[in-house]
């Protein structure tokens, strides 16, 4: 048998032996081990809150910015309306009485 084949057969035997030797856990053990620890859950909660807060800051800033822009736009529209109203007067207010006659 070649060295390679011999090595392969011995490797296989060693792995099989190790598999047989390993302690087989019960389902109960496996399920208990996989339950996340309370500390870990708390850490996840804190991390989630921090992430949410950090994520909320740009959103809040964006909302504020939009609000300011909308207010400014409304003010501009009102101002333009006033200017238009003044411009569309046929005669100055002081001469309006004379024009009526």
């Amino acid at each position, binding site marked *: 048998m070649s060295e390679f084949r011999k090595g392969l057969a011995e490797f296989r035997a060693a792995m099989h032996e190790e598999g047989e030797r*390993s302690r087989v856990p019960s389902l109960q*053990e496996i399920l208990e081990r996989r339950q996340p620890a309370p500390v870990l859950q708390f850490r996840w909660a804190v991390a989630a809150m921090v992430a949410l807060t950090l994520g909320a800051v740009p959103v809040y800033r964006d909302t504020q910015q939009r609000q300011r822009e909308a207010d400014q736009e409304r003010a501009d529209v009102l101002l333009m309306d006033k200017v238009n109203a003044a411009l569309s007067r046929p005669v100055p207010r002081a001469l309006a009485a004379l024009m009526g006659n």
Partner: protein
Amino acid sequence: MQPLATSRLFAVETQVRELALADFDAVIRLYWPRIFRFVLASVRDHDVAQTLAQDCFFKAHQNRARFRGEASLQTWLMQIAVNLVRDHARNRRFQFWKRVPSEPAEGEGVRNWLADGEINPEQKVLVKERVAAVWSATAQLPERQRTVFLLRFVEDMDLLEIAAVTGLKEGSVKVHLFRAVRRVRAKVGRSK
């Protein structure tokens, strides 16, 4: 007559499957050695192998309702194990600061595996060296080649079974196996 026989066979198979999954402790007892040794051969770390093998049975237990019996229970469990080993390798790549040496200390990995009294001490040393050489050579293979190699030579699976476990085509399995054997043979030969 044929359809009736087939449907009965299917019903019996379903019943056996349901019984097997109902007693999941029996499933673990039966398949643990196979899953554990495959994972150990892949990751070369006893503690990690223990954890990943447990993860494998945990996942199987969580998803047991989805097991429809298209593949054998062994193939299904092995699929989960292969995916876990792959994920572990990927995570390790991104957690280089946590990395522990995957190379076991000289002789450490194959310690005590050989039954005492069967061979003399000199032979035992030689066997240990050969086993260590093969194991070290498999560790240097790319992930897919290593998986295919271990499924073939440790788990004695045929090409179709390996294809089912890995999701590769039979032709790809052949190619990976050929390349893996060539590399391992070259490395084992060199380490002599």
